[in-house]
């Protein structure tokens, strides 16, 4: 409680025991993850579009490489990039832009008045989104590999799994950070989400190894988890000269770990600021703002 006896947040007002706080936040995580996971079976049309759209994009780039007479591993690069694109789209549309949609639907003020931490809501969104998108990414890889005959040479599957998981932490951490920023930037959410697609596919080397971007690739590796993760995974899945990375896999894993910490801490700070602003100005929960 504050000095004058008025709680500054619903969490303070609840005045719960530590155990109850933990249980409430875990329930919030599970509650927010639930619709995304259960949506896998309840909304088959989602499945269709979220597999079809990345697959169409993958196919177009595969045909470009084939028209250019590129070595076959480039087809594999495109398929793997297409699968990772599904995660990026999930982060942009269902993490970064989510609070903005929630505001439009009138849910956001409920989040601000409920006695759990907003990080729990975002964590639930991330876990649900990760599960949901993993099925779609796997479908893109399986279908793409079967249709275009991609072969993989995975010598260290555990290391690959580790790199994948390590990529997901900063990726979804960035989504959490963007969720607050998108809400602050208001009506620009749609344009921002659009802006984070093709430019990021280009800078992130979704369809080609990022070392071909020259000096820009160093900057990209230092800032974009999608690019670093993809570069490391390509080195592990398609060993050879064509997939030579910007940095060794171990260094890229270290970068991903540091990024994970930075983005998660950044997300927490941004949420705290957002929550203060929402209570002080009362505008953040208004629709159409």
């Amino acid at each position, binding site marked *: 409680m504050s000095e004058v006896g008025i709680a500054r947040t619903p969490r303070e007002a609840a005045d719960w025991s530590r155990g109850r706080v933990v249980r409430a936040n875990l329930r919030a995580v599970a509650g927010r993850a639930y619709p995304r996971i259960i949506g896998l079976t309840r909304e088959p049309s989602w499945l269709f579009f979220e597999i079809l759209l990345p697959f169409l994009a993958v196919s177009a780039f595969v045909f470009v490489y084939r028209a250019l007479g590129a070595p076959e591993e480039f087809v594999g690069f495109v398929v793997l990039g297409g699968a990772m694109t599904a995660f990026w789209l999930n982060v942009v549309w269902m993490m970064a832009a989510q609070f903005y949609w929630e505001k439009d639907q009138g849910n956001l003020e409920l989040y601000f008045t409920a006695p759990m931490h907003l990080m729990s809501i975002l964590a639930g969104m991330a876990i649900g989104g990760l599960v949901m998108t993993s099925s779609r990414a796997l479908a893109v890889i399986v279908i793409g590999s079967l249709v275009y005959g991609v072969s993989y040479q995975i010598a260290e599957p555990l290391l690959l799994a580790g790199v994948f998981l390590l990529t997901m932490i900063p990726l979804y951490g960035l989504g959490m950070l963007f969720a607050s920023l998108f809400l602050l930037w208001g*009506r620009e959410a749609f344009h921002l989400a659009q802006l984070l697609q093709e*430019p990021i596919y280009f800078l992130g080397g979704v369809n080609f190894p990022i070392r071909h971007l020259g000096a820009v690739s160093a900057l990209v590796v230092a800032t974009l988890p999608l690019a670093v993760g993809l570069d490391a995974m390509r080195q592990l899945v398609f060993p050879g000269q064509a997939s030579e990375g910007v940095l060794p896999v171990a260094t890229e894993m270290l970068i991903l770990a540091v990024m994970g910490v930075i983005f998660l801490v950044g997300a927490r700070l941004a949420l705290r600021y957002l929550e203060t602003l929402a209570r002080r100005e009362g505008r953040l929960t208004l629709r159409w703002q």
Partner: protein
Amino acid sequence: MTDRSAAVRGISLADAWRSFRTAIRLGWAIEANWSDPFLFAVYTMAKPLSAAMILVVMYSIITGGQAGKFLQFLIVGAALWNVVYGVLAGLVQSILEDRERYRMMKYVVVTPSSLFPFLLGRSLARVGVSLVAVVLTLAVGVLFLGVELRLNLLLLVPASVLGLVAVMGLGIFMAGWCLQLRQEAWSYPEAIAGAMYLVSGAIFPVNVLPAVVQPIAWAMPTTWWLEASRRGLVGHGSPGDIGALSDGTVMLLLLASTVVVVPLALAAFAWFMRAARHKGLLDMTTGS
């Protein structure tokens, strides 16, 4: 008492023109005026340029960076495709936004004026933005990537007019279709544009497609519009079979496919509107 012999306001050509102009202003306000101008300018430029640059880097990795006809083919295709996506997304998202988000569709439909000029005007802002993207992408191609413009206006102007009409026909069909959908209507323009991107020879020659898909490519007006526009802009068409056709044949195929697509699309839109009125879909919100 109403004079029954007097013309009903809203159904004259002048009224349609007024609806069209008002809808253009509204569409632009929604698309741009409510955004930060700097962000909007960056968004307008960065998205199409990045899409083109992905192809340029892919090309340069494989060919070692040599400028050539294939690079020109890629850049012109990537540039012009912005129009297809702009028209499809503009028409479909306008109708869905007005139904689901702003909930104005039913009010527009109950006015004596036709929905048609409103819909066209409302979507024009996105089409305008897509035309800016075409110019920007081509300008970058010419200034930095060695694209040589060899304009043939006798080919380019009629091809652009016919192509735009055909693409708008497809967009109108999609807009009517999406009114019927209860789920995922927002995803349809992207899915259809993505499928058309694949079969229209936008960024790779149609010959590369599996044989079963190639007849679809030959039937699409977008294939012939892109081919005719390439010839009108850079003086040569696609590599492969389509590139071997004469200019006259390409224009004839563009005209024929447009003549088939547009009346069918308009008839389908009228039917979709009747069905939407009948089923009460004009004020439906799906929460999607």
